[in-house]
């Protein structure tokens, strides 16, 4: 089903064809709207590449983008990250971990009443900056914080 949808999206760019499929009930609108996985952005090996991949060349620092992360993560395998955007008309939020092999972790688009905020849990290989990027009115904004990943003992 997933493959079908992709094939349709790739081959049938003519909107008329899509509209026909929707009308015929072959596809639900939401599925049509779902974008292809952004391979270029997620597989980029540095932040510059990842930002370029999501269309955010040089995002501006913003105090209105709130990034909540622990100062020290007890375990790099599970680092809780909360992002809240107070920037008006925010439509998407992405989260990046600078020193991970592929920095882009996740990217969310919001619609239909969703508030521009998200909480997620990420893996971090080492102490690194965590970046949030928000898109609002076609512009990109960013905020960042360092999370220390500690050496573990026994126990747990």
């Amino acid at each position: 089903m997933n493959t079908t949808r992709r094939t349709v999206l790739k081959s049938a760019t003519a909107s008329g064809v899509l509209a026909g499929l929707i009308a015929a009930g072959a596809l639900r609108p939401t599925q049509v709207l779902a974008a292809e996985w952004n391979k270029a952005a997620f597989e980029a090996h540095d932040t510059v590449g990842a930002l370029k991949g999501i269309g955010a060349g040089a995002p501006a620092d913003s105090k209105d983008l709130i990034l909540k992360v622990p100062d020290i993560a007890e375990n790099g395998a599970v680092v809780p990250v909360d992002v809240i955007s107070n920037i008006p008309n925010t439509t998407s939020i992405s989260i990046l971990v600078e020193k991970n092999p592929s920095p882009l972790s996740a990217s969310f688009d919001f619609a239909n009443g969703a508030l521009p905020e998200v909480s997620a849990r990420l893996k971090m290989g080492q102490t690194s900056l965590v970046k949030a990027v928000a898109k609002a009115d076609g512009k990109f904004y960013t905020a960042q914080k360092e999370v220390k990943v500690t050496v573990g003992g026994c126990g747990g």
Partner: protein
Amino acid sequence: MKYSIAVVAMLALAVHPASAQNKGTAAKKVAKPPAAAPVEEKDAATLEFEKFRAMMEETNPAELFEAQGEEFWKNKRGHNNVSLAESCDLGLGVGVVKGAYVQMPRYFADAGKVMDVERRIVWCMINKQGFNEADLMKRPFASDSHTPEATSLVTYVAGQSRDMKFAVPLKDPHVKDVYEIGKEVVNYRAGPYDFSCNTCHGTDGKRIRMQNLPNISTHRGATSAVMGWPGYRMTGGVMLTQQWRMGDCFRQQRFPQPKYLSDTVTSLLTYMTANANGATYKGPGIKR
């Protein structure tokens, strides 16, 4: 969506008062630690870890295993095609799970033994459902690719004692005897490093690296040692039981391996859980 920033910031602080404090400590830390700073930073780190744990416990992946365990408990399974719900007595009557976990280990006359929850569940799987014993012993603990059914079952049964008080029946002389034996196991030094359980867990306020070490001879320490088990372990992302935990302690003690579901492990669990009697169990937890 166009709410004022000030209001949102206030709301954020109200919801997460800790994050406000946190900014204070972070700022202090940046102010360059002098030579003796590590001790101060340790305290900040401990606070930070507690916050981190609280965040993680909001939504604990252990819930996934509780749900699986419930299926395993209620469905007819095994060679005898019977469910544990209709055949297994955890000490409060056949099929009763509510409150069973916090009253174990306990003595089971049908088995002639004091058993902890995992031992009892596996005993029921073998003796009531007709599972093959050797199969259940083969891979008793969770790995990346495999979570034993007994682990999910323990997680489910434990979840059914959430917010109830530990009440290991120490008045039962069988249980008391095993408790006293457990106390001796805790004291016993052996192996190349001369370690006993007490080397790390017999004094208040000690740490290994950043890990706090509960003093299991005290009510407070024993409570923190049994709390949060079974636990979802962030390292590896697997669900693990106290049977695993005790074995891994022995590994780090440089001891040989205790057999799965051994008397030794039951005796330790009896000692620790009974020392925690009266404390309220919070349900399956999350571990480093």
